[in-house]
């Protein structure tokens, strides 16, 4: 185990996690709103924002799927040390992390009609995150909002499954935005 594995976690766990969660919650409650987070320095290729989300939400209770491009030794060791989240195949994941093209959407849990909350939350690493591009509408949005999304059809299909569906957090550098299943994309 490298010394780097031990570094890059929250300096002040409870307070850093509280600030980070408030930002993630704001993003999930207001789809399209881009927030800035701080506190994590994960190893490449993870973005700081993805590291913050992992530290804030993942622990031994949350099976995590890592896309092949991110299932590198230094990433796995960092996640193991800081969150102890067990890595798992896509079908059993509560969280999934990776770039858009490497995430097996069809294999991730969508929840059940009686427990729609038992669905995966995806942490999607994107190259750009801007308030332009796709049009978003739905709960949390006054009128419409805009967000650069890596796809359209997949999100449209996901919203059609409501109340089942996946929930997405897009991470880019130290910024993130969210797209819950309740948002209609066009």
């Amino acid at each position, binding site marked *: 185990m490298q010394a780097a594995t031990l570094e890059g976690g929250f300096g002040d766990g*409870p307070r850093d996690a*509280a600030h980070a969660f*408030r930002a993630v*919650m704001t993003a*999930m409650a207001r789809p399209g709103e881009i927030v800035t987070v701080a506190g994590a320095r994960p190893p490449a290729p993870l973005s700081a924002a993805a590291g913050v989300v992992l530290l*804030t939400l993942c622990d031994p209770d949350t099976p995590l799927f890592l896309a092949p491009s991110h299932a590198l030794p230094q990433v796995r060791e960092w996640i193991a040390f800081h969150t102890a989240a067990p890595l798992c195949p896509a079908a059993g994941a509560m969280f999934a992390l990776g770039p858009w093209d490497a995430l097996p959407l069809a294999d991730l849990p969508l929840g059940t009609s*009686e427990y729609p909350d038992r669905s995966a939350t995806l942490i999607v690493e994107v190259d750009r995150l801007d308030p332009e591009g796709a049009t978003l509408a739905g709960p949390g949005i006054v009128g419409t909002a805009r967000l650069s999304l890596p796809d359209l059809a997949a999100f449209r299909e996901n919203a059609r499954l409501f109340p089942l569906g996946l929930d997405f957090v897009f991470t880019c550098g130290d910024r993130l935005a969210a797209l*819950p299943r309740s948002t209609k994309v066009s």
Partner: protein
Amino acid sequence: MNEYNFAYLDEQTKRMIRRAILKALAIPGYQVPFASREMPMPYGWGTGGVQVSAAVLVPEDTLKVIDQGADDTTNAVSIRRFFERTAGVAVTEATAEASVIQTRHRIPEAPLRADQILVYQVPIPEPLRFLEPSEVETRKMHALEDYGLMHVKLYEDISRHGAISTSYAYPVKVEGRYVMDPSPIPKFDNPKLEMAAIQLFGAGREQRIYAIPPHTRVVSLDFEDHPFEASKADHACGLCGATDSYLDELIVDDEGGRMFLCSDTDYCAGRRRAGHAGAEAAPFEEDAA
């Protein structure tokens, strides 16, 4: 302060609650099960709201706690003091100054802003529970969007009383999908459920968290010929004269004398500070508020 982890709960518990809150926001009106913890206060005293507040608070927050609209009741005072001690947050009684408001059975009169969070204490989260005692059955009814039983209940109200007599915990449909119990707020408050702030609901004993994101469509159930009506006592506040606020009725003597006054104490005090006076008002004194 140093004896407690920030906001009392341990970090793994907070992560569990936080994950439930995110799913609740993603599925507006759906009740997310969570592993409610024992808190240093009894069930029924707001343990669900306290756990949700503990999971969302940051050190810079200013917390307001109300019980039936009042900042100065035992429940509100002890919860406020709990977070002053365990989270070190500032507290206030002024709605406009608060960033997080925990409430029991009221929505403040002043419109809430986008940078505020309203946390409700919920006793029975399941709107269908008194109609169908089985959790297995009510869960199936939500899954199938089978809410006929609720409409039958409202219809029976009409056939028995000539109007929908449900006056609090009035059921709503959120974003056209889930029927939700807005907690026992008076139906006067139902129209305010469409607001700019994030609304989170915590039921400790029943172990459920649910949410309404900002600007989400919330419709009170009704019938075309018996439309929903947000009602209140047909009086003005005896202290501040307000005619637009929800009123409590207060018995003032043994002869059946009574007065009506704002249930929202901060709203009432603010109006009196601004010079408004009701029919039964004594001259306003700051420390008497």
